[in-house]
């Protein structure tokens, strides 16, 4: 392996080797290499294992599930628009909210991070592929089967009806129909998929780095993915154990959770939340990772406090495993336990705060270039801060006694997850979209959809804080008049439709004919990399190498430099600099 070319040297990418092989041999080698990386055609296309293809399927499918979950949410908002509404029956409403929660958490929020990482991680760390391409494909298909199984059940009126955390004994002895089994079995597939992707990403970050890219030089995105993937690896086993035990109880009557046979319903809650709390950070950290990539680009300078960010991401990961009891504050646990977990839950604000202020410091030290991704980042941060502050409030056990299981918590969790995960994801979508088909997304529609999302989100969820404080419990399919909930719920419903109006606008972003096209050059010999931006044309149409490439890989007889995003900054093109230089 060769040493890095000196920065700024305007040499050709394909420097000849000292002793080039004969041309015939070289052609044969190239052909063999191309064949190995070729994407199958025809119906065999679906047997592809390349990360670019599987990643694209994965992202697309999670977005489909996201839309499905959104439609379920709209159905619920319609039902709650007025007191005593009968748009959905009580039974169907239970199916809808259970699926909405399950789909958004398990079929969108967690897998989208794994999907995006499968798609982009190799490019970011200068690898051709992830270490186990077939494992990625296996995970995707397991995910697709489990997800379709779960979502499809509602069309047969057989969806689970226990809420997304499926507390027994309601879901064991009191719902003998097939719904809970569909949840438990569908989830087995999804759990397998999540763990497969986690293994893939951990090994990918640790073992597929190119020479010269030490662990303290990897893009922050890779660090976040590493932390989140380790969290998946440790958080999912309790859930897997729980789902197996619950299915054993349902199918064979083994009483793990049913007190009639000597079990304890709280065992499920512990197992579920030991998974469930880290899960929030599994969703949140990879989205912060996108922020960590976008902010330095927008600020036009390297990230400030790389080590602080990495350490606080790891700290968040550790702390998140010690907080689960705050989901169980009202189960009658002793005061000392509540106090301990209150303190631990608020402590997570410190590593989160460090990351936040590192981004602020980067903005302060740099010069902000305005762009749509940055709009989403700032909108997300301002929303997430509200979610963080209400999070500190519900972490205080006394206030939790009032807020728990009400719409206040519904508002809090959506503020955290939409502000902390969906806004950054939309920013990332906008930022990285040119890597999919070489086209920028429309700036105009991007701005429009941002404001729709931002206004729609706030109008939907801010009133829910109040309706929760006015006593509205979660998961009610109807409510009576005379409790001052009508106006608040109507406003929430209107907001939900504004939020939903953003999705056609978002989908249209790629169809705006006025957008400029980036011409991305495929790198010879590495077709798998062709969708990743390695080189961009300069204003004269000639290819220039990224200025911050840190190494080179040998491919055929050519030495090919690669560009990566390192702690020195981001080297993916910012959309607003389309057609110009890439830096």
């Amino acid at each position, binding site marked *: 392996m060769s040493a890095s070319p000196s920065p700024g040297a305007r040499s050709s990418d394909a420097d000849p080797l000292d002793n080039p092989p004969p041309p015939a041999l070289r052609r044969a080698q190239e052909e063999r290499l191309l064949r190995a990386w070729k994407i199958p055609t025809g119906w065999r296309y679906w047997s592809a294992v390349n990360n670019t293809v599987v990643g694209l399927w994965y992202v697309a499918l999670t977005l489909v599930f996201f839309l499905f979950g959104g439609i379920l949410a709209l159905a619920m908002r319609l039902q709650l628009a007025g007191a005593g509404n009968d748009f959905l029956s009580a039974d169907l409403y239970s199916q809808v909210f259970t699926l909405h929660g399950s789909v958004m958490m398990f079929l969108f929020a967690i897998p989208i991070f794994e999907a995006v990482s499968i798609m982009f991680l190799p490019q970011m760390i200068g690898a051709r592929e992830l270490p186990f391409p077939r494992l990625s494909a296996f995970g995707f298909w397991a995910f697709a089967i489990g997800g379709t199984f779960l979502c499809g059940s509602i069309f047969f009126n057989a969806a689970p009806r226990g809420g997304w955390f499926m507390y027994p004994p309601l879901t064991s002895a009191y719902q003998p129909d097939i719904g809970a089994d569909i949840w438990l079995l569908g989830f087995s597939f999804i759990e397998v998929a999540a763990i497969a992707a986690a293994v893939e990403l951990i090994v990918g970050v640790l073992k597929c780095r190119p020479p010269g890219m030490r662990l303290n030089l990897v893009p922050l995105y890779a660090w976040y993915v590493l932390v989140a993937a380790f969290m998946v690896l440790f958080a999912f086993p309790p859930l897997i154990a729980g789902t197996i035990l619950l299915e054993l109880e349902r199918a064979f009557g083994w009483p793990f959770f049913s007190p009639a046979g000597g079990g304890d319903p709280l065992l499920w809650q512990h197992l579920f939340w030991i998974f469930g709390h880290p899960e929030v950070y599994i969703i949140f950290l990879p989205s912060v990772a996108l922020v960590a990539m976008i902010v330095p680009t927008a600020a036009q300078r390297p990230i400030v406090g790389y080590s602080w960010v990495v350490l606080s991401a790891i700290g968040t990961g550790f702390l998140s495993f010690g907080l689960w009891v705050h989901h169980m504050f009202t189960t*009658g646990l*002793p005061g000392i336990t509540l106090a301990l977990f209150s303190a631990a839950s608020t402590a997570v604000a410190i590593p989160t705060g*460090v990351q936040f202020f590192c981004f602020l410091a980067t903005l*302060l030290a740099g010069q902000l270039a305005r762009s749509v991704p940055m709009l989403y980042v700032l909108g997300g941060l301002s929303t997430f801060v509200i979610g963080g502050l209400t999070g500190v409030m519900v972490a205080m056990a*006394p206030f939790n006694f009032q807020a728990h*299981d009400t719409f206040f918590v519904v508002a809090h969790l959506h503020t955290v997850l939409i502000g902390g995960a969906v806004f950054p994801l939309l920013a990332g979508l906008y930022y990285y979209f040119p890597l999919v088909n070489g086209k920028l997304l429309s700036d105009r529609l991007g701005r429009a959809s941002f404001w729709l999302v931002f206004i729609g989100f706030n109008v939907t969820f801010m009133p829910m804080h109040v309706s929760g*404080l*006015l*006593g509205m419990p979660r998961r009610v399919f109807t409510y009576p008049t005379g*409790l001052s909930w009508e106006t608040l719920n109507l406003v929430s419903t209107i907001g939900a439709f504004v939020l939903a109006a953003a999705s056609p606008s978002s989908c249209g972003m790629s169809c705006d004919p006025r957008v400029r096209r980036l011409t991305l050059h495929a790198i010879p010999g590495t077709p798998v990399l062709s969708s990743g931006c390695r080189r961009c044309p300069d204003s004269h149409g000639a290819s220039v190498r990224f200025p911050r490439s840190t190494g080179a890989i040998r491919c055929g007889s050519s030495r090919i430099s690669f560009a990566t995003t390192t702690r020195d900054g981001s080297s993916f093109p910012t959309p607003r600099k389309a057609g110009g230089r890439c830096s």
Partner: protein
Amino acid sequence: MLVVVLVSTLTGCHARPLSALDAAGRDAEEIARLFWWMTGAAAIIWVAVISLTMYCARGPRVQNAQRFTPLLIVGGGVALPAVVLTALLALGLPSLPRLVDAPWTGHLSIAVSGEQWWWRVRYLTPAGGDIDLANEIRLPIGERVDVSLTSDNVIHSFWIPAISGKVDMIPGRTTHLSLEPTRTGTFRGTCAEYCGTSHALMAFPVVVLEHDAFDRWLAEQSQPAQAPATSQAARGGELFLENGCGACHTIRGTPAAGVIGPDLTHVGSRMSLAAATLPNEMAHMVNWIAEPERAKPAAHMPAFGMLGAEQLHALAAYLIGLR
């Protein structure tokens, strides 16, 4: 506009019997105070953080900004949350021992058990007599009452926002909550943990009374059922027994002694029907007996619509007369 709507709802004087902010109990008052403190502090922090973000994002380039960045990260990310959160924990946690393990005066305690989807209520008086009631709680003002919470089916959660926080009712366990109302009036309690199809229709009226009014009410409730006052009601009483209603319901002083459904000894005196789902009126009583599922989906009570209007009205007249 949104802010106006929210503020007017938060501070308005509409009927809000389930509000956690219109406190009528010592614990709820304390929690509401904690809430307002936290909300105020959160608002200040949010404005400060967003202003700082705007400054960092839009402001002119700071000279030697690099020199300030460690200060920003350590100050804003570590020092500020550490100080604020320590203060908050010191402010909020000392009330925990009283909220969780409050000393019980030993005068009155109530055992509430969650059912799908109604409340079994038993008053345990100091004299030793237990009074079985259902779907309504009345409390004497200014006295701390111990409520023991159980469930023999699924998990429910007992919550009277105006008086105190909620505590779950977990099968196989007995949990406790103590209530200390500070204001008379009529409030509302509800189930806060999803407990099946009609979870939304599992509420109960809560009435806080002066001491003598409470004692009078409890004495009345401890009596056996009144004899029917009209011939229609007397016919209803016969129908009640003939149709097997007594297999599930108890009416003290009659042969009806079932324990599956709610005790109906004084059902006519209650403020609502079917766990605060319907007003306690003749027409609703008739509909409820004829078609319980219409008011409460998946209700476990069988429908008695086959009895016909005349018999249903007789039954309803009998039950409404049980004051």
